[in-house]
């Protein structure tokens, strides 16, 4: 139960957007280590279950389970396939628009645990859903591995807004594996934030814009520290006529390594996409790479990319200091501006919380 969580754990959960007034949410599911510790469904238009229950109830979810991801694509994926622990199943019913967000929390509270998660999200035709996922480890956990498989289905005319916020520890290894399929006139909006220390994070969510007029937009905000290795890529396959995609990845490197990758495949007439990787290096000893790639197969499409890595300009710093801000305050304001979190339209003043983090960096 949530009541059994320590104040420290709760505080950290709040930092990844979790709300401890679950009655105010569209629904909640908290998984600690391998088991659900809290479950609440507040709305008959949405179904939220732990994955094991969902597999039982829907006879193995054959249309959805392991349909977008090849279990053998890499060793981590295979690990979940062979030794599946838990996950969330969230489905919004056809034509139901639920604007109050649903929250899912994946929490590691056990030393050296390998948490093997499999999630499924289904937005039925014409529906609308907003999900906040918080993934974190307890402060007392030194070493652990989180592997999270997520298969998302955005059906005809549906809209899914998905925010994932990570808050791990300095020795935690993280391997999310996410694939989304968007049907005709469907929209998928993804916001990913990882601005707290992590040892080793590698992910490359894939999105298949299969349907005509389907849309995907990704925003990723990354912050690396000394000794951390972050490799985040986004792959979008524009396979439906007039599909559109925009991927924006912003990274701040204060040490360690950040690699931001982007791949877009244009394989249908009239598709339009833009890839934008921006980096800021604010300390010596770090490395940042931006690797955008466009792959076009049609004559009538429009695909662009932009990549830029820079440092904080002395001129900007001095300008703000000339207004009386300290060096630290100036740096914080410039990095906040660079990340421009307010552009993400995050729920519940989560942007406010993220500002506070950045201020404390």
């Amino acid at each position, binding site marked *: 139960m949530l009541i059994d969580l320590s104040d420290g754990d709760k505080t950290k959960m709040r930092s990844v957007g979790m709300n401890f007034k679950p009655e105010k949410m569209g629904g909640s599911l908290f998984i600690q280590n391998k088991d659900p510790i809290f479950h609440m469904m507040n709305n008959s238009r949405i179904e939220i279950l732990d994955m094991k229950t969902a597999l039982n109830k829907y006879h193995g979810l054959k249309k959805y389970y392991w349909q977008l991801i090849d279990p053998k694509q890499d060793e981590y994926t295979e690990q979940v396939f062979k030794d599946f622990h838990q996950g969330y199943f969230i489905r919004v019913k056809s034509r139901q628009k639920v604007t109050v967000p649903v929250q899912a929390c994946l929490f590691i509270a056990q030393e050296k645990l390998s948490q093997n998660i499999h999630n499924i999200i289904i937005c039925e035709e014409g529906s609308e859903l907003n999900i906040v996922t918080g993934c974190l480890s307890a402060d007392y956990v030194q070493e652990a591995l989180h592997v999270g498989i997520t298969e998302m289905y955005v059906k005809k005319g549906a809209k899914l807004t998905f925010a994932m916020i990570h808050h791990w520890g300095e020795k935690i290894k993280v391997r999310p594996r996410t694939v989304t399929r968007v049907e005709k006139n469907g929209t998928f909006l993804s916001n990913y934030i990882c601005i707290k220390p992590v040892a080793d994070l590698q992910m490359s969510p894939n999105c298949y814009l299969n349907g005509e007029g389907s849309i995907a937009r990704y925003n990723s905000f990354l912050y690396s520290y000394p000794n951390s290795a972050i490799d985040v890529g986004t792959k979008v396959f524009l396979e439906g006529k007039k599909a559109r995609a925009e991927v924006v990845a912003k990274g701040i490197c204060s040490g360690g390594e950040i690699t931001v990758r982007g791949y877009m495949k244009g394989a249908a007439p009239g598709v339009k996409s833009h890839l934008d990787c921006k980096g800021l290096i604010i300390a010596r000893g770090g490395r940042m790479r931006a690797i955008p790639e466009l792959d076009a197969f049609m004559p009538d499409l429009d695909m662009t990319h932009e990549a830029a890595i820079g440092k904080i*300009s002395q*001129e*900007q710093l*001095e*300008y*703000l*200091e*000339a*207004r*009386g*801000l*300290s*060096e630290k*305050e100036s740096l914080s*304001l*410039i990095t*906040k*501006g*660079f*990340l*421009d979190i307010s552009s993400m339209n995050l729920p519940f003043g989560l942007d406010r919380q993220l500002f506070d983090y950045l201020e404390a960096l």
Partner: protein
Amino acid sequence: MRNLLKITNLSASCEGKKIISGINLTVKKGQTVVLMGPNGSGKTSLLKTILGVGNFKIITGEIYFNNKKINNLSITERVRLGIALMFQKPPKITGVSLLSLLKLLNHDEDKVNKQIKNFQAEKLTGRDLNSNFSGGELKRSELLQLSLQKARLYLLDEPDSGVDLENIKLIGKQINELMKDKQRSAIIITHSGQILDYVKVDKACRMVNGQLKDVN
């Protein structure tokens, strides 16, 4: 009247090149000093050296503010003593709106709103700092920021350059507003002298080749 700023025998260089040389200047409390001179004569460099902005290295001389030597203080420390600089070419800062900075400069929301109105800056506050601002908008934004800093000495670098007549009038009015209680001082750089139609000055100096001439 007491000296608020006293500069003695100040020489400074930038990237090894001497930019200003042997400057002696005093600004008394309540005094407005105008600084004229050709392009590249060192006017902006002098103002920046006073605040410690830019790559200017003091070679000789002292800067005293309110009888305290400030040569080695950081920019922020100098600002907190009461020096404020209006930049001639302020840098763009993406993702930071003018309003968010104004709120940091002054926590009194009513005062911030009042000043935004006074500077007719309602349309500027939501924009990224100094991005896509016209000449006049830049000057208004700069002066608006200064009006919310609790300064005793304003260093105004060309408040009238690239500004149309309408804006000069407003800027002149607002500079007078800043100075009205006679407790504050200013050094104003101007090329055209247009601002002098609106602002009363007590002293005029001319800079040539990094040296101060004709102090009147």
